[in-house]
């Protein structure tokens, strides 16, 4: 199996910011140097189908490439044996009048290449039958895009290759107002930086304090003797920890667990606020009360992380395991030992004096560093045991994993299922069996788009539903697709190109989870 884990996380460059960093500044703030490096190491193949219907979704394909070339993928290749027609000129921004009758692959490659000198473009102008059969013909690529329609034979061949080699594949189709795309994911596709909602990432460990944090609570001493100023500036985290101790003494050493107890606990905290001041309360107590329901909870473990820890790839690592799984194994060991994940270490803003805040911040940071150190040690041990010392995993990759551990997710394609379009085309029994249910529950009325665009021509569409209106919607959709004769509407292909590229970026940078659903668009 080939390497499918995230590529090594590059540490932020310590050298001068280059013109290149400046150029990509606005996107680096989204997917960081690690994502950018993965993007620049990628080679994307665009296969234009051989059925030569209208423009064959080439506008959607070329728009997708445009959106990938701008942020700087490393290489792209366009495989298209057609020649440029008049109709192409009117709808494809990356062709010009002089392109007429020339190779469409060559011409679009040339004009797309102008967009970004950092990217190298290639063209394959021969027919699929001539090059696809060659040995290792698909070997250079780590993402395959297919512009439909395409002969079943080549679709099958390409999907099988992608599946065997654990690379993602995206199938897209655009005609008139209709468009759709599907992603075929590899068996396992791990994502470390899932960009979780910042609200959900807070992990304060209030119910699992460690000695240094306990000591900070001790150091407050007797709250009742503090001056009004000091009392009003105790960071709310310490307040909560202080009142949790009080609660435990009167509740058999138990923490508040259900909603009712948490509400009672909140009342206990609130009762401690001093109200003999002009404001009639204290801001730090308000903050403490406001966060009770959210932060009085056991340390979180995301569902994606739990699933990951149970996957065989995690529990049974080998010398050939990708970095991701080596670290995942170490994280699991950490979790099994401590019952918690490594601490992310970040602290929300709160009412406090600068000194107190910084003190508290360093307690959290120190704990996070210690946790990373422990995981790193396990990783090194594993590397030693598996004799993979030559490919040492860099510290920053381990650190990034620890920080995001709770939200890590492994996208899976359990049975290596191919895209629904292909399953339909080969009359897959299971897919057909599921179809009536889909048709019945298609409350948004988008299934006709999918069926009209991609159902095999031999498929019988005359009896899809007993509901006359529903049946008619299928017939109308089919008519619409026939009416446009494969002609693309630039704007719809541009929407499709945007969507496909958006998902491709997520897959290539390994940032955020991509969609696993077939997506359909009716631009009417």
């Amino acid at each position, binding site marked *: 199996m080939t390497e499918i884990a995230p590529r090594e996380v590059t540490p932020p460059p*310590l*050298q001068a*910011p280059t013109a290149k960093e*400046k*150029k990509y*500044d*606005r*996107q680096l*703030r*989204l997917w960081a140097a690690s994502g950018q490096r993965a993007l620049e190491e990628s080679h994307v193949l665009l296969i234009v189908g051989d059925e030569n219907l209208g423009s064959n979704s080439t506008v959607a394909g070329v*728009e997708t490439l*445009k*959106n990938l070339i*701008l*942020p*700087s993928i490393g290489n792209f290749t366009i495989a298209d044996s057609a020649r440029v027609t008049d*109709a192409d000129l*009117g*709808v494809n*921004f990356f062709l010009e009048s002089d392109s007429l009758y020339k190779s469409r692959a060559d011409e679009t490659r040339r004009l797309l290449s102008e967009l*970004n000198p950092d990217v190298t473009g290639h063209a394959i102008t021969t027919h699929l039958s001539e090059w696809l059969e060659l040995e290792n013909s698909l070997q250079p690529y780590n993402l395959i895009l297919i512009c439909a329609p395409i002969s079943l034979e080549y679709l099958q061949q390409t999907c099988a290759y992608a599946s065997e080699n654990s690379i993602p594949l995206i199938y897209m189709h655009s005609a*008139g107002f209709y468009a759709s795309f599907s992603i075929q994911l590899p068996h396992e596709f791990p994502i470390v930086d899932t*960009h979780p*909602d910042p609200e959900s990432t807070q992990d304060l460990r209030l119910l699992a304090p460690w000695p240094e944090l306990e000591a900070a609570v001790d150091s407050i001493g007797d709250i009742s003797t503090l001056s009004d*100023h*000091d009392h009003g*500036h105790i960071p709310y985290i310490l307040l909560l920890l202080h009142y949790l101790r009080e609660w435990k003494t009167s509740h058999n050493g138990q923490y508040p667990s259900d909603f009712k107890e948490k509400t009672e606990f909140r009342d206990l905290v609130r009762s401690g606020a001093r109200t003999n001041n002009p404001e009639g309360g204290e801001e730090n107590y308000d903050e403490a009360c406001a966060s009770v329901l959210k932060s009085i909870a056991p340390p979180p473990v995301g569902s994606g992380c739990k699933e990951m820890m149970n996957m065989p790839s995690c529990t049974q690592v080998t010398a050939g395991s990708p970095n991701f799984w080596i670290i995942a194994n170490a994280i699991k060991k950490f979790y099994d030992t401590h019952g918690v994940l490594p601490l992310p270490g970040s602290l929300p*803003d709160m009412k406090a*004096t*600068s000194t107190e805040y910084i003190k508290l911040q360093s307690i959290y940071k120190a704990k996070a560093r210690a946790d990373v150190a422990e995981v790193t040690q396990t990783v090194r041990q594993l590397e030693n045991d598996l004799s993979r010392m030559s490919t040492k995993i860099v510290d920053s990759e381990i650190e990034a994993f620890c920080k995001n551990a709770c939200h890590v997710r492994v996208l899976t394609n359990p049975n290596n299922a191919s895209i*629904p379009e292909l399953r339909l085309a080969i009359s897959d029994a299971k897919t057909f069996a*599921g179809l009536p*249910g889909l048709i019945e*529950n*298609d*409350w948004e009325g*988008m*299934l006709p788009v*999918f069926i009209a665009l991609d159902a095999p021509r031999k498929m019988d569409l005359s009896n899809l539903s007993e509901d006359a209106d529903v049946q008619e919607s299928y017939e109308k959709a089919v008519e619409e697709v026939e009416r446009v*004769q494969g*002609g*693309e*509407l630039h*704007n*719809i292909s*541009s929407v499709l190109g*945007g*969507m496909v*590229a*958006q*998902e491709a970026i997520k897959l290539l940078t390994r940032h955020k*989870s991509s969609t*696993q*659903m*077939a*997506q*359909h*668009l*009716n*631009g009417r």
Partner: protein
Amino acid sequence: MQRRDRGVAQSLGGPLTKRVKESRVLLVGAGGIGCELLKNLVCCGFGSYQSALPTEDGTETSPAASHVRKAEVVVIDLDTIDLSNLNRQFLFRKQHIKKPKAFVAKETASQFNPSVAIDAQHASIFDSTYNVEFFEGFDIVFNALDNLAARRHVNKMCLAADVPLVESGTTGFMGQVQAIKKGVTECYDCNPKPVQKSFPICTIRSTPSQPIHCIVWAKSYLFPELFGTSEEDSADMAVTEGDNAEEVAKLKEEAEALKKVRRMMGKSEFAQEVFNKVFHDDIERLRSMTEMWQSRKPPEPLSFQSLSEGPSIVKQGQTLALQDQRAWTLLENISVFCYSLETLSNRVQGGENVIEFDKDDKDTLDFVTSAANLRSHVFGIPLHSEWEIKQMAGNIIPAIATSNALTASLCVMEAFKILRSQPAKANALAEPTANNHIPTKAQSTAIGKPEELLGGSKMVFLTSKNTDRLITSQPLVGPKADCPVCSPVYAKLAISEERAETLKALVDLLKRTVGYKDFSMTTEAGIIYDPDLEDNLQKPLSELGITGQSNGFITVTDDSDEPKVDLVLSTTIRRSPVDDAEATGLQITPKKIELPLKPEAAYANGDMDGDAEPEPVFASSAGAKRKRETEEEVESAKKRAKSDVYVVEDDGAILLDD
């Protein structure tokens, strides 16, 4: 032979293709979304009609033709191209850096489809040239802007001109599109927008506790005091109730003293003087106010002499300034501080009188980073790298090609629906807007059925959280009856250039044509007339800033017990000759204005609550309810359909008769 526009014609159908080709389109902004929009407009044939059939000598053929609205795309942008634009603004290349965006965008896009007429203007949309009449000349307007002020301005101009507006924006992986039409949908200002956060002045100037406080201090206080025009007030900080008046007065003195230091710019000891003033003397003064530090850690002043290491310091600063990914040490910050101060001083000496902070102007960023870090050090706050400070100081919003491409194409999709639903404008210069508050028959049937608004156009969101559904939409909602921007009736005031009319003439005209009794008038400058304010009555309108050439508005407010909605007048130059029988050179169009009553909630005292809100808002809550139901349906549909072919996406049905 296949025609070039076969794809477009085949998809859109005959009538809509014609509308699209004949349309006159305004695109405000040629940045991230703007470039994509221009490509889509050009590739879909917008504004390609006239130039597709050019006359032989290129001039108009008959006198009648001079009234014909020219099909074209007008693109306006004030900005020039920067290196950091090139990762997404695909009409620009490296050799275009520093050139105006509008011109380059036109040049690149024209190469694709020479038959589309593109008129590029390198200007600000706030210019008075772009008045209500200018906006009336378009079938549709696209906003592709990056700031609130311009968005709100175009929103108001489109409401006044009664032209449909497609508003859009992106942040990182997210995006949003909203169609707006006067009297039909919500406008941009129907929902309040978050205002920029402002810090209490004493937090910034005396008691910072977070890095952002020090950054705001460096960027909005120190930098303008040294390099900006003085007396600039920044929105970043304000005197608030919590601020101590005595301390505020002291801070004023402190700023005065800094101005004296500014006069030493150009002398060799300048950097040292600035440094000692702000990191030593001012800090000593703060420290001396012992009551301030009873419970806080007092700041530690820095001394330039004991820290600096001689003349090589500037040279070191220059090298260090290139390392923007790690936080500099105290000494390194001093080096960069001296280096940037010298560079900026040289620029001032070189004739650049005023320098404004700009995150992409490296010299200013170096200065703000080092000054903010030095202040952080003084107050025991963690230091940050230049890269991090740039994001905080420059309010940088992540921007990527994909989101812009998607959002721009969704805009054009909404535009198709709008053009389909709107009757074509007369092929002549538009008659002044009719009484646009009262819904026309077609529109009034739509109220309560919000999904039918504007040809089924929807509010569209590019979402980033939900991976099952990449684009979500919700029905457009009718206007808020108490929206200060779109609830008034908009009309026009034509002002003769021959006669210098007074405010009294306008007051009389309003009484006569609208039937006002007690009312007041407000312009951007403030109240110019109310029943108790008669000082201005004899003044010529021009003295009050009201001319036919401005793009400002006059708001007329009914002060009676049962008030009508506000009347908002835009001004134009009167073209028709003044008839001697007329008493005035002023003319209000439309001639007959019927103002509906103001909804009670808009002027009643006290809180408004949901129950009291009038009908269109009811439509909005119905819309929200419908959305909830929809989401539940998705959930249950998901549960039922246990297969991974799952169908999602945009739209219901808009039937096209073609």
